[in-house]
């Protein structure tokens, strides 16, 4: 059972619904579902779910994230990122693990996995998920 996907449906999540616009620094400590528009910054210590119709021009920080909409900005996910087929990210992406569905678009640098620093000082990518799983 995929708890990651199911938790996105949590009834206690904060929802920025379709037709609602947020501008500025939106910081939450729980799960957040965004179906509307955000310009600025989004930060949550919970699961961030970006719906298919969501449009974000924002810097994103979350513990976990499921993305099905469009993000223009840097995305930093501390743990697990799931990119749905409709996801479009224009910006750099950093996460611990990632699941990417066929059709997802990323324009930017991807850094997946903590990895140990190499001699050159670059992170070593150690994916622990099969792509598309």
């Amino acid at each position, binding site marked *: 059972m995929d708890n990651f996907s199911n938790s996105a449906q949590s009834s206690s999540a904060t929802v920025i619904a379709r037709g*609602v616009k947020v501008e*500025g620094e939106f910081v939450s400590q729980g799960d957040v579902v965004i179906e509307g528009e955000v310009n600025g910054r989004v930060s949550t210590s919970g699961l961030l779910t970006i719906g298919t119709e969501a449009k974000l021009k924002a810097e994103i920080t979350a513990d976990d994230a499921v993305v099905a909409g469009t993000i223009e900005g840097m995305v930093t996910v501390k743990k697990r990122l799931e990119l749905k087929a409709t996801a479009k990210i224009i910006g750099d992406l950093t996460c611990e693990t990632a699941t990417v569905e066929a059709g997802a678009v990323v324009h930017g640098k991807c850094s997946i996995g903590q990895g140990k620093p190499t001699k050159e000082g670059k992170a070593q990518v150690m994916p622990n998920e099969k792509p598309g799983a």
Partner: protein
Amino acid sequence: MRRDSYAFIYDDFLSDRKYERVLSELDARLASLDLNGRTARLAMFRNAKDLAESLVSQGVTTMVMVGNDQTLDKVMWFLPDMDVTLGYLPVAEPSRIARILGIPNGPEAADVLAARLIETVDVGRLDDRYFLSEVAMEHTLAAVDVEGRYRISPARGGSVFIRNLGSMAESGEASADCKDGLLEVIIRPEAESSGGFFKKVKQPETRIFIEKGEIVASQPVEAKVDSHVMNGMRFKLGIVPNKLKIVTGRRRQLAPISEGLPAAAKSANLPFTTGRTEKSGTGGGIGIRTSLRG
């Protein structure tokens, strides 16, 4: 322990003959319950605040408003600052706030007053005025600025509600918790046409919780505050926790039924203490929760 001293303030509209019977029955009920005190009547050129201050100086400890929700509104802007308990005897419509407080319309309201089930509730502030229930702005592009950190608004117009107690716009069932120290901001975008004849798709609503903020608009907006209307482009919002002592009925709905109340109390309709609902914080004492409707 001081003895409760009542004052009954009747709204001006009750001088209409059509209210004679209900007032007669109410007075009889109050007398049978040994609830008596000074009586006064609001009038067009009589300052409600001066009247209330005069009664308090005479030792009144419970100010009972007789009328409807608009009567309550006439004293709400100053009464929370007074050392009195507010009672409410609704005898006419609109009485949505009465229903949320669990007070029946008519002579039966006297029984609620006699039971003296007193709750201490939060009151909202819009600029320098208190409000008990909600601020409603419909068909607006106004935004709510949350402590200068972010602004949230309907992208293409909609309704914005800032609630402390229940819901004036809907069924009357409580959807805000007036004992949590937070205002509930609800944003409901305009319904979109689904393409069919006159068929509109109801949009999900966004709900956030704030301690303070500001309503900002680029054009003057009409804000319905409890039972009166204010116009402007900027309004400061705030909440004053535990500000007002008010007599409530056993059927009061001071918090959303599905969240704060024990199941046993709901089914038995027994007196209960509203529990604090868990709200995810967003920093600066702000919590957010949203429900999807429609």
